[in-house]
């Protein structure tokens, strides 16, 4: 009942269970067989080299390969070893895979899951390896989920895999070592349904990915001050649970968005814009965004920390909107 798994183990279990269920599934990417982090452990042994493919360093081609394979009836998982590699395949993602169905008038079905490993900053990854590129996917209209816990990782990954459209699954670097309760059987967390990860009545914090556990900690710390903080996790960023978001925001009338993507045109901007449009009347204070600065992440720890959103800033923002 309360089996604990790490985030990467939860992903691994989802891969195993789904590939077992559906022989049309294949997985490909760089060093899948080598299994650097653990999420692809045992796949080669169980499913063989025809379904578990190590690719050359050719991101654009292996994304296009996934599109073609999907159109021809397979269900590929295309794994990006690090998040910023999506840029190398950007045309194949946003101008091909994502548009194929509409452009063909519904003829093509493109059931591909992109697993984007280790997104976001983590201690010393520096400028090119610390991005959290999901806003690009959202703007391009690609279905996107970001799992904040081991439980969500398994459930959202399974939903992503079963979806008949391209879906990007983001696994934040700062989440990969998390542990949590994960049921053994396969289960799917529906897209477009956010979750109140911590109830509260004074202010709503909308948090994504590794910032969800952080936000919960900050929320807990406010209990002593008599400020009741609700933490809402969208889980799937596109489709976004707009009704759930608006309801959560309207309930408190105060909102802080806590998101680790660049500020300008980031996810927090979309949430703020949505609320300014839909629940304007219910708002009691300006909507605050606590995000990454619009800057590449510098290597050195103090600089890195200064550019990232952090619990102190979240706390300060909560005080401002409640004050």
């Amino acid at each position, binding site marked *: 009942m309360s089996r604990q798994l790490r985030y990467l183990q939860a992903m691994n279990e989802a891969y195993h269970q789904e590939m077992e269920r559906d022989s049309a599934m294949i997985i490909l990417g760089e060093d899948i067989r080598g299994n650097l982090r653990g999420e692809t452990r045992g796949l080669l042994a169980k499913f063989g080299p025809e379904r578990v493919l190590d690719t*050359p360093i050719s991101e654009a081609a292996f994304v*296009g*390969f996934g599109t073609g394979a999907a159109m021809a009836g397979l269900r590929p998982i295309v794994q990006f070893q690090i998040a910023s590699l999506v840029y190398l395949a950007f045309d194949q993602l946003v101008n091909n895979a994502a548009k194929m169905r509409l452009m*063909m*008038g*519904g003829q*093509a079905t493109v059931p591909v899951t992109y697993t984007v490993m280790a997104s976001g900053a983590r201690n010393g990854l520096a400028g090119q390896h610390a991005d959290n590129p999901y806003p690009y996917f959202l703007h391009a209209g690609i279905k996107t989920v970001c799992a904040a816990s081991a439980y969500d990782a398994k459930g959202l990954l399974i939903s992503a895999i079963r*979806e008949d459209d391209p879906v990007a699954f983001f696994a934040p670097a700062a989440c990969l070592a998390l542990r949590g309760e994960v049921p053994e059987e396969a289960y799917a967390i529906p897209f477009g349904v956010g979750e109140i990860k911590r109830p509260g009545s004074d202010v709503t914090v909308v948090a994504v990915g590794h910032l969800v556990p952080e936000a919960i900690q900050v929320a807990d710390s406010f209990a002593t001050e008599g400020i009741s903080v609700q933490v809402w996790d969208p889980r799937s960023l596109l489709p976004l649970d707009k*009704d759930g978001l608006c309801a959560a925001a309207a309930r408190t009338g105060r909102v802080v968005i806590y998101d680790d993507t660049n500020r300008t045109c980031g996810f927090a901007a979309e949430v703020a814009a949505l609320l300014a*449009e839909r629940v304007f009347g219910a708002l009691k204070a300006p909507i605050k965004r606590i995000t990454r600065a619009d800057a590449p992440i510098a290597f050195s720890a103090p600089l890195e920390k200064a550019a990232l959103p952090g619990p102190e800033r979240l706390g300060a923002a909560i005080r401002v909107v409640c004050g």
Partner: protein
Amino acid sequence: MTITVPKPLAEEMYRRMQLIRRFEEWVVKLVESNEIAGVTHESVGQEAVAVGVCLALRDDDVITSTHRGHGHIIAKGGNVAHMLAELLGREGGYNKGRGGSMHIADMALGIFGANGIVTAGCPMACGTAYAFKRRGQDRVAASFFGDGGVNHGLFHEALNLAAIWALPVVFVCENNGYAITTPIASVTKVELYTRAAAYGMPGEAVDGMDVQAVYEATRRAVERARAGAGPSLIECRTYRFVGHYTAERFMKLDYRSDEEIVAWRKRDAIPAWSKRLGEAGLWRADDQRRCDAAVERELDQAVAIARQSPWPSADTALDHVYARTYPGLPAQGFE
């Protein structure tokens, strides 16, 4: 210059080339009468490549095409009425009017789409071929691209993928000498087909104005692919008799000399093939005329059908974006 293919195939080669030629001429007319919107790239002059390649494929083989795709689609058996309805933006078009010239597809016929991005179809052909291979099917994917494509990173990555996994893909380079105004010799120092060696696959150049030569070369490559021996690269040397796109005629560009165009027009594959059919005793004087007339009828009817096809309704603009939608997805542009 003997004819080595059976008579029905030889005739079909002629018919499809002529159908492409006249189709493209209809397209130009419809662009000029403003019935076709946007940008169309005609393949006039290159018909022998499309037909030679596609007739060497089986119906259940797949092609990926390019911005200059009309010829490929017709050669693979595409329905010209559905194509024209698409070009007119109608609901009865292949893509229900969603795609237009650069995205025509017929998944049932193995036409996995024209594509507006140079070489974008190449990796998709690899994935498709992999699906065939994995299912134990002996089907093949042929991927068209232009001379401009061979300098693109995707060309390189896709050919390498196909080679290392011995995928049943035939890469067909339509070398018409130019990428828009850029001569291939100014951007590539080698004969294009020789690049096959960099991936450990066979490559050959073939006269793209000789439909039978293209057909034979493709046959060899297809047989290799079906037998599990992997991909090949075929460079078809051809020429477009017209501008890069319909609009070019009004643009006063001077990247090609009139002499060059005239010299290539003299090598026009369509009359040349008709002549060979005659010389080989396969065609009598009015066989071509009969065939041409049938082509005209088919196109006249197709244009009429296409014109009668209804316009898509504006309230379906957000259909077909996803296989599965959710509340609020896709988002409208207004609330």
